[in-house]
């Protein structure tokens, strides 16, 4: 029988959302249309329209060693062109953000190629070749993986994911890269590392509480699905925990 990945355990809505995000065959809902130029501005690695700086000559122009792995793996566009490795980093509020660091890493590993994700408790960084990064960043920003109020694009000074929200529902950001306008639209006024932008970049309206709770991948015992309510998830986590604890003693079931 052909192997069919399950992506994750659990019977709750949160578990279902996690599986949906991880499954590359499932198309993520597109919610906004941030342009390529805006993405370049947000990332702040190069000026819009500028050529991609390179770390090495294009692969076609340099002698490749005779390596079987290189014959199997097709290089990504960025790797082919010899782009620098650059990053995008996200912070997700614990108040029902649509994604969170571990989930982001799993999702990206299933969906993207040639990436190096870094997972921390309050932030998640994705490193890859620059032109691949811009393509992936567009997917991460324009789809349901991001909420303008509860997800931050923060290259540095990420503090805020576990704090109370601001009065207007935005996640705390000491650099205030994003501002909620009078018209209800969130705009980036600084790039991801906190340098002011020449023009504000529109991200769109924050999603409402109902949408967030329906799409969140975070268990939250106050106000939404508690982790303890998902028996299947607990059973799975406990099984993994037991097995990895016993691993050194040759586990046998």
């Amino acid at each position: 029988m052909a192997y069919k990945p399950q992506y994750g355990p659990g019977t709750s809505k949160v578990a279902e959302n996690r599986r949906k995000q991880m499954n590359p065959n499932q198309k993520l809902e597109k919610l906004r249309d941030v342009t390529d130029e805006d993405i370049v501005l947000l990332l702040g690695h190069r000026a819009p329209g500028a050529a991609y700086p390179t770390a090495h000559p294009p692969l076609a122009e340099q002698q490749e060693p005779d390596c079987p792995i290189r014959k199997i793996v097709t290089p990504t566009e960025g790797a082919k062109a010899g782009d620098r490795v650059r990053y995008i980093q996200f912070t997700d509020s614990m108040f029902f953000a649509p994604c969170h660091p571990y989930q982001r890493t799993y999702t990206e590993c299933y969906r993207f190629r040639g990436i190096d994700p870094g997972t921390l408790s309050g932030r998640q960084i994705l490193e890859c070749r620059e032109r691949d990064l811009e393509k992936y960043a567009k997917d991460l920003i324009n789809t349901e993986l991001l909420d303008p109020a509860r997800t931050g694009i923060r290259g540095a000074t990420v503090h805020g994911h576990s704090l109370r929200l601001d009065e207007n529902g935005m996640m705390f950001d000491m650099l205030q890269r994003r501002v909620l306008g009078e018209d209800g639209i969130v705009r980036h006024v600084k790039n991801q590392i906190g340098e002011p932008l020449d023009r504000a970049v529109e991200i769109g309206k924050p999603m409402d509480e109902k949408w967030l709770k329906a799409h969140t991948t975070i268990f939250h015992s106050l106000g939404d699905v508690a982790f303890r309510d998902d028996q299947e998830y607990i059973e799975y986590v406990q099984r993994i925990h037991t097995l990895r604890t016993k691993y050194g003693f040759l586990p046998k079931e």
Partner: protein
Amino acid sequence: MTDAIYPQVRIVPMRLLRPDTAEQLLNKLIQVGGIRRMTINGPNLPATVPYGPARGEPNPHPDRRAIRVGDQDVMLQIQVGMVILELEDESYIPAVKKAADETFADKGFSCTVQQGRYMKTQPTLSDYAKYGPDADRELLGLVDPRKKDRPIIIQGTK
């Protein structure tokens, strides 16, 4: 330093406050009277970018501004998340609760008002290094000992 006979309360709103709301709350609280000492707490809003490639560059932030509390200007360097009060006696607590509830009534969120001990009871090493052995114990814990700022005195009616 705190004397055990003075009750302390902590007001914790469900959201981090904007300067306007903080100003409103603090002014309502000082109208209640009976406050000996007050501290506001919350996450820092630095004047310059503290980390990363843009480190040291100015950090314009609209919430880092002065608010008017009573007859004094208070420069906010934080986003207000908690207010700690030391009161003359327990009879002021219901009025403090009422003032806090009134402030947040039309904001769409609530707050909790708790009684306990929230201010310093012993000078720390940093306090000792800054103020020495004969520090004014009333002032300990009111300001960050690593900063040059002094506490702000708001005149009461006594």
